[in-house]
């Protein structure tokens, strides 16, 4: 015989009571599995995002991105000169792609394709073998290959958005109609995501559409010889070294600045972007004798009788005593207008508004001086060269991006002037007057001229350069790898999200396992009493049963860990298929950390072990006699006679009022995240409700109700036998109902209010985005549009799992939005768009967040007119600016999800090079959506216009939420199942305990019907209380969200779900009763 020992006895106990222990085991297994699975999911998501973050940077650790502007390739070479490696110069452009020979209107077209002109240095950073490609050959990434069904050797057509040195919106910028260059390419190969194919600077896990082409070929194609807009440095660099090298090596010409010698008059500083940046002007003007000037093309100069169109004017210090309302004219103009000194002339010119509207302004000047033409030979030389103006033969050939009067252009005198004098100014004004008239967001000066004493260009350049911080010009390498990893670290933790939504499920599982363990102990009270009577000290008894519990917990926890890995795999499978929307189609790879397993085990088993130990302690502290003889179907703490108490009601009332107060406060204050309040209030209401119910049962008795003693009353009295157990039954079911009902209530019918201006669509029928910027909104019959400016950044919406550092920005016209009443709150508060127009005291720029979900999930920030968080952003020059989140569009989901909204004015001043409009909100009148989409995509196909209904856009965003809701509904259903199971177990237990009693009732003449009534009343009471608690808690906890979202929850679904949940509880109980039905009344009586 095996030697008898305490562990052996414990083991025998475990084996003998395997039925009830299986329940405990399963409960612990379930809770451990849920916790472990959720944690593994979190680890897997983090690990996947980490891998994606590294692969999307393709080995780059630092990046100097110069959007809409260009740097000399040579600068990258200089940075690496005599060092171990050279940063890669990349020309990054936008394009539309379609299979070769396709018609952009009818064929699959992919917009917003990233064209990357790269050379060997790029492949060196990625660690890949440089491709042996020829011009017009390209490598495409997997996503693009899939989208266009392309394979190696296929051809594709590319429409590359034409880059321009000058901002397209800038005055006097070339106004060519051609926004894109079309080219045919052969697919040299398909590059895998891990090999650099995913290259992307945005903090997003989704792979962009990428095409890699030889850089020199691309530069030639778009007339940007030796120019790039992105430098990349690998991990062998560090930030300090890059900053130092940049400061040492950059030259004016690298950023498009030129010191042009003017015959006999020294050097003049000019920019290939025409307008000089403020930092450059400040540095240049610090040189002794330097003088700035501003050239402009005015619409007309006229007197009352005479006028001349389109003339160059110059604002500078032409004459020391010139006043701001005085002008100097040339002899030609004086003759043309028949004017003399002292006469008045009117100057008219266009000002471009942030909305890209050309508004003509005029100003009156008095002629101070008339300059003879002979003096002006050198002036012509000193005018900056305007592309599209300076290099054409005739005025009629002028190609300027502003509206021009065709008839005026044909003015013969003006044509003759152009032939002879070209750009020679006709008019001079003071600098202050010029700046007032022609200064713009693109710059205030066109040239800075230096005295002839500065003969040595290099000395002069050094003097200017030494006064400019390269960072101020945007010449700054950002630690993109560090930022990417930071973004991953701050990303939405899927694991904790699941853990949070599984909270009530875990609680149910734990409650069930603890309850089962308690049943098992009660069942074995005689055993415990015997052991005590046989001389077992309390501590040894405790040790024996604790050992059983420990073995059970270890086994349940161990199995739970294994099941947790399976659960995680199942979740990942779900996330790759049915719920793919939740992770925007990203394949999350399984990743297991031993520490996570241990944490899951500890969390899953620690709590039940503690609870079980406490129960054991209490039971082991009982006297042997009590253990041997006590009726454990009755609660020990029950008073022999019920004492009337109002405490239960008072407790319930306090709980309810507290819950309502908290949610009322939440409704008024509108915190960024409702989720914590939902959980806190829900847990509070459930807890208080359950305790109140327990208290009520404890104090419910015959007392003064003897006169009305009935079967129903007897049934209620049955409930009071074990208030704790009945409260547990209610808790189990109420938790499940709370979770499932809440998830059902969170579902939203987007279509219902889509046409309303206050909804997430703004009431706009269509939403369009173009790859190339349009200078104005497209206008067709029945279609009106609100154009929006767009600055690409990180997606801060639900489709991006990373934490967005620099979200996309839309520039909107607040006045137009106000006028349309779009996206405004239904609650009649001050119009939200006004917030964008209010200047802030600390110089921060007011920004609205696209919707409430973006505030909560994408930015995890506070959006408030006074207490809003500040987001640090880089403007076009790389300067850090403060964006104050003054509010959010007042709906959970809008077409602007994941973005920030700025007023057009602020947008254009921060990002002057972001030309034109790239997003559009369309209203339709008398034209069907499909027809309007077809028309817009066809007519604006060259700009890569993609149009969808606003509802489709919302639905796409809602995919994420819907997928989460489906997942959580499953968890809720599991919760209800567990609750129903728990109720069944408790019913079965009570039934078994009361077999004798029932047999006795039958012996006393009770009919089956009477007993059924007793049971029904008991069951209905439990179901009703559970339903009331779970449903009520859910309703109150969700109330602020429902009220704020202005939408009604799906009431019919709620009701149906609620009924189903109650039915599942009832079914489980009936099944338990059927399973524990007695075979013989006599047996039961004998047992009793």
């Amino acid at each position, binding site marked *: 015989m095996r030697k008898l020992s305490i562990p052996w006895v414990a083991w025998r106990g475990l084996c003998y009571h395997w039925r009830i222990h299986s329940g405990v085991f399963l409960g612990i297994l379930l809770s451990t599995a849920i916790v472990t699975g959720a944690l593994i999911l979190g680890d897997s998501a983090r690990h996947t995002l980490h891998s994606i973050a590294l692969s999307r940077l393709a080995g780059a650790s630092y990046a100097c991105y110069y959007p809409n502007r260009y740097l000399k390739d040579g600068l990258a070479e200089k940075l690496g000169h005599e060092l171990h490696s050279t940063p890669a110069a990349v020309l990054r452009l936008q394009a539309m792609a379609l299979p070769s020979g396709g018609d952009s209107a009818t064929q699959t077209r992919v917009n917003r394709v990233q064209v990357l002109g790269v050379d060997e240095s790029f492949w060196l950073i990625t660690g890949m073998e440089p491709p042996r490609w020829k011009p017009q050959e390209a490598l495409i990434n997997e996503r693009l290959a899939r989208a266009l069904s392309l394979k190696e050797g296929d051809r594709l057509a590319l429409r590359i958005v034409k880059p321009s040195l000058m901002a397209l919106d800038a005055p006097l910028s070339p106004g060519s109609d051609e926004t894109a260059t079309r080219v045919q390419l052969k697919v040299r190969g398909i590059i895998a995501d891990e090999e650099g194919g995913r290259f992307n600077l945005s903090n997003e896990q989704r792979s962009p559409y990428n095409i890699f082409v030889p850089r020199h070929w691309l530069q030639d194609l778009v007339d940007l010889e030796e120019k790039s807009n992105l430098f990349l440095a690998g991990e062998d660099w560090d930030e300090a070294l890059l900053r130092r090298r940049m400061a040492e090596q950059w030259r004016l010409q690298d950023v498009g600045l030129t010191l042009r010698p003017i015959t006999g008059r020294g050097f003049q500083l000019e920019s290939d972007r025409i307008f000089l940046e403020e930092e450059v002007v400040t540095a240049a003007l610090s040189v002794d004798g330097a003088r700035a000037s501003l050239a402009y093309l005015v619409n007309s100069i006229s007197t009352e009788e005479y006028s001349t169109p389109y003339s160059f004017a110059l604002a500078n210090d032409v004459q020391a005593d010139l006043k701001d309302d005085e002008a100097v004219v040339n002899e030609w103009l004086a003759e043309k207008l028949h004017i003399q000194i002292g006469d008045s002339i009117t100057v008219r010119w266009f000002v471009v508004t942030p909305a890209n509207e050309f508004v003509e302004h005029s100003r009156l000047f008095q002629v101070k001086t008339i300059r003879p033409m002979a003096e002006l030979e050198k002036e012509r030389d000193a005018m900056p060269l305007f592309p599209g103006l300076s290099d054409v033969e005739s005025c009629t050939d002028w190609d300027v991006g502003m509206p021009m009067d065709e008839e005026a252009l044909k003015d013969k005198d003006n044509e003759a002037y152009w032939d002879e004098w070209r750009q020679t100014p006709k008019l001079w004004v003071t600098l202050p007057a010029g700046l007032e008239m022609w200064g713009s967001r693109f710059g205030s000066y066109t040239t800075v001229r230096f005295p002839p004493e500065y003969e040595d260009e290099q000395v002069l350049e050094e003097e200017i350069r030494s006064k400019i911080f390269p960072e101020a010009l945007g010449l700054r390498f950002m630690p993109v790898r560090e930022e990417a990893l930071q973004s991953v670290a701050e990303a939405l933790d899927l694991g904790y999200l699941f853990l949070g939504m599984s909270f009530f499920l875990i609680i149910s599982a734990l409650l069930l396992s603890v309850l089962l363990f308690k049943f098992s102990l009660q069942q074995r009270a005689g055993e415990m009493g015997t052991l005590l*009577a046989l001389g*077992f000290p309390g501590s040894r008894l405790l040790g024996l049963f604790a050992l059983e519990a420990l073995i059970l917990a270890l086994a349940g926890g161990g199995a739970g860990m294994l099941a947790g890995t399976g659960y995680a795999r199942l979740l990942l499978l779900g996330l790759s298929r049915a719920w793919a929307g939740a992770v925007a189609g990203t394949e999350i790879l399984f990743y297991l950390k031993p520490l996570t397993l241990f944490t899951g085990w500890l969390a899953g088993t620690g709590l039940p072990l503690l609870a079980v130990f406490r129960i054991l302690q209490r039971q082991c502290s009982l006297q042997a006699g009590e253990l041997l003889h006590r009726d454990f179907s009755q609660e020990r703490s029950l008073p022999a006679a019920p004492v009337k108490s109002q405490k239960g009601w008072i407790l319930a009332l306090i709980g309810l009022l507290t819950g309502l107060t908290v949610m009322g406060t939440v409704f008024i204050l509108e915190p960024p995240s409702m989720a914590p309040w939902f959980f806190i209030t829900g847990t509070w209401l459930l807890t208080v409700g359950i305790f109140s119910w327990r208290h009520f049962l404890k104090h419910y008795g015959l007392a003064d109700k003897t006169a009305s003693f009935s079967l129903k009353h007897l049934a209620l009295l049955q409930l009071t036998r074990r208030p704790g157990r009945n409260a547990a039954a209610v808790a189990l079911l109420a938790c499940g109902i709370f979770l499932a009902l809440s998830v059902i209530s969170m579902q939203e019918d987007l279509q219902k209010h889509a046409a309303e201006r206050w909804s997430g669509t703004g009431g706009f029928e269509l939403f369009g985005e173009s790859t190339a910027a349009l200078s104005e909104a497209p206008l067709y019959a029945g279609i009106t549009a609100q154009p929006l400016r767009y600055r690409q950044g990180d997606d801060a919406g639900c489709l991006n799992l990373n934490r967005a550092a620099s979200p996309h920005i839309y520039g909107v016209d607040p006045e137009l939005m106000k006028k349309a009443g779009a996206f405004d709150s239904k609650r009649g508060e001050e119009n939200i768009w006004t917030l964008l127009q209010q200047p802030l005291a600390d110089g921060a720029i007011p920004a609205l967040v696209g919707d409430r979900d973006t505030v909560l999930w994408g930015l995890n920030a506070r959006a408030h007119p006074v207490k809003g968080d500040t987001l640090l952003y880089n403007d076009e020059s790389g300067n850090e600016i403060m964006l104050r989140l003054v509010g959010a569009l007042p709906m959970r989901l809008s077409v602007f999800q994941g973005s920030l909204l700025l007023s057009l004015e602020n947008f254009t001043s921060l990002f002057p090079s972001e030309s034109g409009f790239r997003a559009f909100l369309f209203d339709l009148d008398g034209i069907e959506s499909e027809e309007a989409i077809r028309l817009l995509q066809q007519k604006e196909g060259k700009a890569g216009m993609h149009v969808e209904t606003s509802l489709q856009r919302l639905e796409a965003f809602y995919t994420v939420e819907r997928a989460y809701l489906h997942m959580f509904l499953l968890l809720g259903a599991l919760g209800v199942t567990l609750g129903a199971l728990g109720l069944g177990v408790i019913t079965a237990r009570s039934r078994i305990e009361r077999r004798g009693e029932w047999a006795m009732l039958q012996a006393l003449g009770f009919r089956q019907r009477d007993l059924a009534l007793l049971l029904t009343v008991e069951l209905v009471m439990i179901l009703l209380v559970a339903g009331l608690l779970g449903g009520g808690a859910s309703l109150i906890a969700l109330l602020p969200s429902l009220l704020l979202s202005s939408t009604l929850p799906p009431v019919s679904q709620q009701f149906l779900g609620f009924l189903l949940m109650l039915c599942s509880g009832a079914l489980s109980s009936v099944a338990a009763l059927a399973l524990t039905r007695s075979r013989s009344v006599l047996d039961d009586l004998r047992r009793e």
Partner: protein
Amino acid sequence: MTEQHPPFLMELKSLTRSYAGTAGDIDVLKGVDLKIQAGESIAIVGPSGCGKSTLLNCMGGLDRPDSGEILFKGQSLSGYSAKELARFRNKEVAFVLQQHHLLPQCTVLENVLIPTLVARERGGAYERALALLEEVGLGERLHHRPQELSGGECQRVAVVRALINRPGLLLADEPTGSLNEENAFMLVDLLLHLNREQGMALVMVTHSLALAERLSRLCRLHDGKLEEQP
């Protein structure tokens, strides 16, 4: 110097015990006095609820009296710690209850050996268990589970379990209450046999006067006091 043995194995002096009830305290024992000598057999009879089991529980260290004293081999139990009381129950006294309370998960032999798990001296316990089980006619059923035995057999196992640590006093609380007449007589025979053979004192609570009369002394618990019957 020779060791002085106390004259009584156990002595109860003015034992009182009451329980809280809805209408105030219920005095169950109101001053019980009893002296038990080694090897004696005493039957305690009385109506239901008169406090017989309470008295037995106090004697066995399962319950503590409100007042009075219990001396075992001259030593007062009132000074015993919980641990010492447990040891006392394990080594010096033994219980046989109306229900056998055998551990269903253990075999007959294991059930008998359970008390040895917490005993200081375990030497020879196995052999003793075998011998005792043989003696009570269960030698063939060592590895059977309680569920496979009859009520009488289970109760015999419970008796053997009680004797495994050679107690000086066996406290039997209605040991025949759940047995039929034949088995009841057989069990009392066994108890008396062991009482004689092992020299162990026996205190048995019973309703049956016929069984009680087979013991050497008969006491009646009446109104919280013990009266010796002639």
